[in-house]
């Protein structure tokens, strides 16, 4: 008999298990995933209980106590012998398609660390009037764009719903923790692609503080289960959702129908900018760092780069930089290999598309991996922004000056998110001002693109604040106050990953 993993969680004292039918999904190696077929009758009982547990327990629990509890939960997950962690490592590579090394390093090494006491944010909102220029916040800088126009405020949300996209591992855990800081009970729709971790994490809270855990329900329903989603929206004070364009349209409509606010995080594009100043004897180091951004999460995240703009006029040309990057991609891909979802067809598609251009005499050069693990393309045509096929396929494009990039990508506006940079401090602020103005929200030192910090805004809003207030301020962050220092630190960390396969400590 194989192993059955429950992909759901709510207060077991409701004794709902016998009232439900279940679906089972065989994921191989004798492991099956168990998902309930949710009914509005059962959901009604769950929602009433969430409200009750919030009132009886959460509202009487001090914030410090909540944070200390979560810290203890996270400590369990940091222990390689922790049973739930072992289950996660058995199941997650199968359901997510990511390699164990990727999950270990960037998932458990970084994402879970965000839930350590020292990283949990307790400042939910900044005064935008104090941030009209890039100003210190956390260990970086932030700037506020726009005028405050509050469109929603509810400082005491009772029930918060979360719809999590499948491309961000651990998001469900972060969401259920953040809700507790605003005293809200939580329902989470875990992604169809990865329905496992949310329930495992909720159960790990139950191990430490059952009453706190019972303010959380993990609900693995399908998007096509309209009656479930409709019911849940009708019972929520706000819903935060991540997803693509289709999700944006349908969930926004649903929120409007129920007259509730939605904090949406939709489809985004991210890219890298390398200034000529770093294209000297440091160019190899820069390529080494960039290779981590391209490799991380196989480019599946909204924060993953889809293009690299390299400034001309340095000692190393953009084309030579592409060649350096290809060398580093090989090394990084050995330390962080692809998993079962290799996207080989995407890589081959990218190859054939650009091979034809190269044959036709266009200024294109291909730097392929012999194993189709990755592909670096140098495209010397007039720079434009084109989406990558992803799965570690990246284009390097020359630009005469980094300040040409903001007008070039302006049409993408609200779709922009993370910009990985190797730009010296004196040129960074004017660039950040211009790129922030047109829509980019997170500027991070190269190799840090997928390593968000808890003080940073997310798509221009602070994750805590948007749960109780929505305004029209768009926040833009730079993840460091000193890029030279951050590049040095990042190199040390990158080499730790490559040489020792060590978990990433937060910078």
């Amino acid at each position, binding site marked *: 008999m194989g192993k059955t993993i429950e992909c759901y969680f709510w207060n077991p004292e409701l004794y709902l298990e016998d009232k439900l039918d279940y679906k089972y999904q065989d994921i191989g190696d004798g492991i099956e995933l168990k998902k309930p077929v949710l009914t509005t009758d059962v959901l009604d009982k769950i929602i009433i209980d969430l409200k009750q547990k919030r009132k009886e327990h959460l509202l009487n629990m*001090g*914030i*410090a*106590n909540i*944070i200390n509890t979560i810290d203890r939960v996270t400590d369990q997950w940091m222990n390689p012998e922790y049973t739930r962690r072992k289950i996660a490592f058995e199941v997650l590579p199968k359901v997510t398609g990511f390699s164990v090394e990727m999950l270990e390093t960037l998932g458990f090494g970084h994402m879970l660390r965000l839930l350590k*006491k*020292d990283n949990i944010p*307790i*400042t*939910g*909102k*900044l*005064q935008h009037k104090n941030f009209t220029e890039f100003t210190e916040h956390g260990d970086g800088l932030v700037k506020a764009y726009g005028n405050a126009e509050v469109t929603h405020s509810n*400082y005491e949300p009772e029930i918060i719903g979360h719809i999590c996209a499948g491309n961000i591992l651990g998001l469900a855990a972060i969401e259920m923790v953040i809700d507790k*800081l*605003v*005293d809200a009970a939580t329902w989470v729709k875990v992604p169809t692609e990865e329905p496992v971790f949310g329930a495992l994490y909720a159960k790990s809270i139950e191990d430490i503080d059952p009453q706190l855990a019972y303010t959380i329900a993990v609900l693995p329903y399908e998007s096509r289960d309209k009656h479930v989603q409709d019911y849940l929206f009708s019972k929520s004070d706000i819903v935060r959702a991540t997803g693509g364009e289709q999700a944006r349209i349908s969930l926004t409509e649903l929120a409007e129908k129920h007259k509730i606010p939605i904090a949406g995080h939709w489809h985004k594009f991210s890219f890298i900018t390398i200034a000529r100043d770093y294209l000297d004897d440091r160019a190899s180091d820069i390529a080494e760092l960039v290779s981590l951004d391209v490799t991380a999460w196989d480019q599946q995240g909204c924060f993953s780069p889809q293009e690299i703009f390299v400034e001309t006029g340095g000692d190393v040309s953009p084309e030579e930089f592409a060649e350096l990057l290809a060398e580093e991609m090989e090394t990084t891909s050995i330390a962080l290999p692809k998993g079962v979802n290799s996207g080989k067809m995407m890589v081959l598609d990218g190859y054939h598309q650009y091979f034809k251009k190269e044959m036709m005499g266009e200024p294109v050069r291909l730097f392929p991996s012999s194993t189709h693990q990755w592909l670096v393309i140098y495209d010397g045509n007039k720079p434009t922004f084109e989406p990558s096929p992803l799965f570690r396929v990246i284009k390097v494009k020359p630009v005469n000056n980094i300040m040409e990039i903001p007008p070039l990508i302006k049409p993408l506006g609200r779709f922009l998110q993370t910009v990985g940079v190797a730009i010296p401090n004196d040129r960074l602020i004017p660039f950040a001002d211009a790129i922030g103005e047109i829509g980019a929200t997170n500027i991070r030192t190269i190799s840090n693109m997928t390593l968000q910090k808890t003080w940073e805004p997310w798509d221009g809003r602070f994750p*805590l*604040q948007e749960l*109780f*207030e929505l305004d029209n301020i768009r926040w833009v962050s730079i993840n460091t106050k000193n890029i030279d220092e951050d590049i040095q630190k990042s190199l040390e960390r990158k080499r730790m990953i490559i040489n020792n396969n060590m978990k990433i400590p937060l910078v």
Partner: protein
Amino acid sequence: MVKFPSNEWIRNFKDELNKNEKYKEAAKDWEGDFLFVISPDEELKNEVIFYVDLWHGECRGAYMINDEQKAAFILKGPYSNWKKVINKELDPLRGLIRGMFTVEGDSKLILDQVKAAQELVNTASKIPVDFEK
């Protein structure tokens, strides 16, 4: 009854805090002075700043100041929110999370001293007070 905010109120606060045994025990490891900045709003015309020097369970000094002064921590918020804290209608940490207060200084240290912070609030709430109208 004393007026809040006033010199008289902060002097009372110091005396009451030094009589509070629970505070003495909870704050025995605390080292650090505070500026409590009460920002004007519809109910208060001008900004008021209290300087409070807290050291190992003792309040070594507490008085109103006119100019900016350095301190390890600066807790700032509008008068109406301070009123809610004194009336025990608002937990200051919950206020911080919701942006009703801002803090300068290492907020995580305050998190570690949550019992001491509770006793500060308890002490403040015991002083019979006349709020600004």
